[in-house]
């Protein structure tokens, strides 16, 4: 936390850019295959928004992602980045403007962490000093000790490698980031931590991000918008997590988000965001829950306490309000 505030207070140069992304009737057909991998996909992602592509395997989510930076050539339609068609651009030049993070990370094993992060700035011809300053800034930003810059990827833990991968993708301040299951190879505990860190980082850098995952919970956690794809590359629903959880477009979406979608919705909010009952003098006997907890976790604790009311406490221990089962149940109505 301290590291991040200090990085900001130094007036760090450079996270300014984010661009709007538009997929217009994009299609992908592989030769010799009867059905297209993606028949026709249209999506708009506003600048600074996180769009999660989620779906079962075979739904074409990774294909869609790789069409954007032209790692896979388009068969039809167009993709606009900042209003400009990616097809007009030289592919390598385009890719230097798009941060790219993949599940296997793909760090260069023969380069130090610092040199890995410096990849795109070098391609862009930045001078030495600017690169060094940028690398230091990025390491701090992803909560890594700057001393790690001299190490090789083989000397890092999985979580550290993932952070380096994100720092590398952010290095040249790209207006768009593509992330293909970036936390897929990380164990669940570290994944949750990386997800939290990522959200904090995104609050700071405000990039336009397309994020691919097969995990609906991750999609709900990370996305401003979620695009649910079904087999055959068709878009089933594109909306905010809350909307998808409350109003799934069809059976497929309802099944994909799971029978516990009401609970998942409660997981989207913390107690700080809802209206609590007034503390009426006497403390509720069943216990207390921090205000930073998600509504879902609070509900779980309520149930564990036999449904008796709980105090909600601030960081400083002050009772801010009370929650009851009726109150939380009412949120879903």
């Amino acid at each position, binding site marked *: 936390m301290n590291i991040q505030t200090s990085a900001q207070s130094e007036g760090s140069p450079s996270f300014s850019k984010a661009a709007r992304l538009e997929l217009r009737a994009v299609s992908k057909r592989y030769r010799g295959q009867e059905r297209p991998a993606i028949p026709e996909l249209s999506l708009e992602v506003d600048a600074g928004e996180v769009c999660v592509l989620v779906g079962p395997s075979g739904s074409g989510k990774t294909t869609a992602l790789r069409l954007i930076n032209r790692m896979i050539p388009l068969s039809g339609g167009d993709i606009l980045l900042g209003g400009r068609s990616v097809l007009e651009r030289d592919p390598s030049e385009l890719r230097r403007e798009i941060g790219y993070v993949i599940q296997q*990370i793909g760090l260069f094993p023969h380069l130090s962490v610092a040199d890995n992060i410096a990849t795109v700035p070098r*391609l862009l011809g930045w001078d030495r000093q600017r690169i060094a300053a940028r690398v230091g800034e990025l390491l701090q930003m992803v909560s890594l000790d700057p001393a790690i810059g001299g190490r*090789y990827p083989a000397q890092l833990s999985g979580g550290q490698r993932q952070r380096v991968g994100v720092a590398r993708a952010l290095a040249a301040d790209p207006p768009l980031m593509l992330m293909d299951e970036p936390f897929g190879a990380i164990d669940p505990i570290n994944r949750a931590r990386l997800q939290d860190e990522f959200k904090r980082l995104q609050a700071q850098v405000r990039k336009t991000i397309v994020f691919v995952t097969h995990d609906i919970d991750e999609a709900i956690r990370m996305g401003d918008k979620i695009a649910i794809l079904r087999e055959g590359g068709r878009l089933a629903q594109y909306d905010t997590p809350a909307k998808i959880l409350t109003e799934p477009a069809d059976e497929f979406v309802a099944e994909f988000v799971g029978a516990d979608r009401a609970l998942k919705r409660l997981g989207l909010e913390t107690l700080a965001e809802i209206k609590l009952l007034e503390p009426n003098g006497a403390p509720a006997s069943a216990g207390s829950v921090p205000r930073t907890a998600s509504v879902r976790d609070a509900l779980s604790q309520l149930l564990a306490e036999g449904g008796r009311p709980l105090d909600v406490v601030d960081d400083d221990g002050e009772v801010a309000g009370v929650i009851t089962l009726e109150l939380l149940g009412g949120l879903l109505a």
Partner: protein
Amino acid sequence: MIWLAAGGPVIPTFGGRGAFACERANRLFCSDWVSRNWSSVLWPALRQHIVLTLIAVSIGFVIATALALLAYRRGWLERPVLIVTSILYTIPSLALFELLEPSFGLTRTTAEIALVSYTLLIMFRNTLTGLREVPAEVRDAAIGMGMGPTQTLLRVELPLAAPAIIAGLRIATVTVISLATVASLIDNAGLGVPILTAISNDVFKTELIVAGAMAVGLALAADALLVIAQRILTPWTRAG
């Protein structure tokens, strides 16, 4: 035909004027003989051997690397290149010298062509394998971050293939050092010369052993140098 080349200048040693007891008795090792003949026979032969090897390995390296890069981009080239280099590799060296002799005579060119042809298979195969073993995700990341094909090759693929390339270089170098003794039959240079002289002189043991040991020593030294070069060039292989 070729054996005549070994006739060369007979070095006046064993049985010659001023021979000492050790040499007359043809003992295993006569240190006097070595010190008397070091600057006139052994050292020049070693120098020639090194030059012969350096030239052959350098040319072979350039050709094999170029072929490997071509085959890396155009997969169908691998088989024909493998077939041709395998044939070159399996031709007995003496037969190859005989084949080349009509065109190039008993010259250094003939010797070098033969030596180069033995390096190609090893270095081609190692380099190609090294390039192909670059992890797919690393290549994907390189291209995805905006490296062009040449940048990917120079900044990522070749450096990562370096351990395999150097391994091929080591085997090729040791092979050439050993074969270059036979090539002395052709161009009358290198450590093969004192070895042949020793054999034709009723197997003069000291010269045979010393020249043979020098060839072995040269091979070991060259190999060690390449190992050191690899450690310097690929420090990352020892990380983690």
